[in-house]
C-alpha cells in the first residue's frame, strides 16, 4: 500500500485548486519529507526559528507542495495557508520563499542553490560549535548542476559530519544522461552513501536511524530510489504530468 495517501490527496487538491504545481515531483519525495519531520528532525513548529533546530532544505524547490503538506501536518502551516496556496492572498507559492513561509529554510526554485547553502550552514554551525544537523533534499536532475558537485567536493574536504544530503533518484536525470550511477559518484566524492527505497517506511527508518553525526567526519548521502508520481498509476513516470494540473 502506498504511504501517505492522505498527503498525496492534499497535494493534488492544492494543485487543482490553484492551477499550479508539480504533482509527480512532490509525490516522489513526500514520503521522505514526512519521515524526516515525523521521526528525525528536531524542530519546534510553533517556534520555527528555534536556535537548536535541525535544518531541512528542499533544494529541489519545485517539489514544495510535498513540503507544504508536511509542514501543515506537523503544525507549521495553517488550514488557511493551504487554502490560499499559489494565490495573491496566501504565502505559499510554486517555490518556497523563506521570508514568508514558516518552516522553510531556503528560497529555492533555481536548481543548484539549496545544497550549497546547506553546506554553508553546516560549516557555520561547526564554526560556532553548535550541534544542529543539516539535511538537504536534492533532485537527481538537479545533480546535473555544477554547483552540486562543487559543494559535494567542498563538504567532503571540510569533513562536514553534521550534513546529510538526500537524493530523489527517480530517473529524471537518466532520461537525458543515461550514465547515471549516482551512488558511485557520491562515493567518489567521499560521502558515506546509502541507497534505499524512498517509499518504504522500513528502509527510511533504517537509513536515517543509522546515521551518526559529528562536527568532523564524512558527510552522508541517502540516495532514494523513488518513483516520480508515486501512488497514482497514470501519473507515475516521466511525461506530460510533470507540470500538469488535474481537470
Amino acid at each position, binding site marked *: 500500500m502506498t504511504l501517505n495517501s492522505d498527503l498525496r490527496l492534499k497535494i493534488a487538491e492544492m494543485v487543482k485548486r490553484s492551477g499550479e504545481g508539480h504533482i509527480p515531483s512532490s509525490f516522489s519525495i513526500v514520503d521522505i519529507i514526512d519521515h524526516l519531520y515525523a521521526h528525525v528532525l528536531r524542530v519546534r513548529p510553533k517556534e520555527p526559528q528555534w536556535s537548536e533546530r535541525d535544518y531541512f532544505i528542499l533544494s529541489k524547490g519545485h517539489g514544495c507542495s510535498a513540503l507544504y503538506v508536511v509542514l501543515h501536518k506537523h503544525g507549521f502551516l495553517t488550514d488557511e495557508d493551504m487554502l490560499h496556496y499559489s494565490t495573491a492572498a496566501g504565502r505559499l507559492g510554486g517555490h518556497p520563499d523563506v521570508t514568508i513561509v514558516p518552516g522553510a529554510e531556503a528560497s529555492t526554485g*533555481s536548481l543548484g542553490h539549496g545544497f*550549497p547553502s546547506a553546506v*554553508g550552514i553546516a560549516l557555520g554551525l561547526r*564554526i*560556532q560549535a553548535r550541534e544542529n544537523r543539516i539535511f538537504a533534499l536534492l533532485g537527481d536532475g538537479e545533480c546535473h548542476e555544477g554547483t552540486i558537485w562543487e*559543494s559535494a567536493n567542498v563538504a567532503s574536504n571540510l569533513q562536514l559530519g553534521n550534513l546529510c544530503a538526500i537524493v530523489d533518484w527517480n530517473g529524471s536525470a537518466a532520461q537525458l544522461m543515461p550514465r547515471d550511477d549516482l551512488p558511485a559518484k557520491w562515493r567518489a566524492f567521499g560521502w558515506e552513501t546509502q541507497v534505499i527505497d524512498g517509499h518504504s517506511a522500513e528502509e527510511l527508518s533504517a537509513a536515517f536511524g543509522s546515521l551518526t553525526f559529528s562536527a568532523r567526519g564524512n558527510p552522508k548521502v541517502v540516495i532514494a530510489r523513488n518513483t516520480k508520481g508515486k501512488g497514482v498509476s497514470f501519473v507515475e513516470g516521466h511525461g506530460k504530468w510533470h507540470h500538469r494540473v488535474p481537470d
Partner: protein
Amino acid sequence: MKTLRLEFADTMSEVGQCDPRLVVMVGDISHGILQGFAKACPGRYYNIGICEPTIVNMAAGLNKVGLVPVVHTIAPFITERAYEQIKLDFGYQHLSGNIVSVGGSFDYAQLGCSHHCYTDVSLLCHLKRATVTIPGSPVEFNTLFKKLYATDGIHYYRLPERPHGIEFAASDLVPGRGIRLREGSDLTIATIAPQLSNALAAAERLAASGLSAELLYFPMVKPFDQELLRASLGKTKRLLVVEELSAHDGLLNLCLRAAIGLPGFSVRHLALQDFLHGYGTHEELSERAGFSPQGIAKSAHDLCSSP
C-alpha cells in the same frame, strides 16, 4: 602607497580579532597575505578553491546561522559568474554579507579580456539591499568596510590593483557621500577609482588652458551622493563622467538619475564600450580606452565647446 589588497588582509585581521562572527572565504587568491588573519582567527579562514558560485552560496549559509561572511576573489568570477547566487541566495533571501573583489575593469591588463570585468558595479546596483564601494586608497577600504560590514545588506567592495595615490582622512569618508576634490565652474568631472589620478591631472591641464573643472570623486556609488552631483551640475551645466565601467550602465546612469529635473545640461561619457582587446599595462589600456589625462581633457574641451 600600500596596495588595496594588503589593506584588505590587514583589515580582516583587525576586524576579525574584534568580531568573532567574521569568517573569510577565498577562491584561491590572496592566500598568503591572509595567513595573519588565519592565525589570529583560527577556524574562520577557508580557501575554498575555484568554485565561485558555491563560495557565494556557502557565504549565504554562514550568514543564515549568524556569522558575517567575507568572500574574496577575482571580480568577474565572484560577480558575473556568481551573480545568480548573489541575487537569489543573498538578495531574495534577505541575507547579508561582504564581497571583496580584485581585478575589476582591466586591472589584469596583461591577462586579456577573460580577466576583465566591466559590469560588476552595475549588476550589484540592481539589488536593492546592496552597497557598492570602490575604494581607491587603503584608508577608504578600511574606514568604509568597518562602517558597513556587519550591517544589513550585500556589501560589495571593488579593490583596484593600483591605488590612486591621493590621501584622504578617515573623517572624509562617510558611507554614501562623494568628495569634491576641486571646485570649478565650467564643467563637472565625475569619476571613481582609480581614474581619479588621471582626472585630477586632466583638471590641471584644463585649468592651464582656461577651463575650470569641478572634480567629484565617489568612493561609494551605492548609495550614490545625489546631492553632491546635483549641486555641482546645477552650477556648471556640463557633465563629464569618467569610469572604467561598461558604457551601458554604471556611474553615468547614477549621475543622470541624480540629475533628473535639473534644467538643461550637457553630458560626455568616457567608459568602456566593448571588450578591451589586447594586452599591456593598466596605463596603456587606460590610454587606449581614452582615460589618459589627455583623453579626459579632450573630452572636456569637446563638452565645453559644443552648443
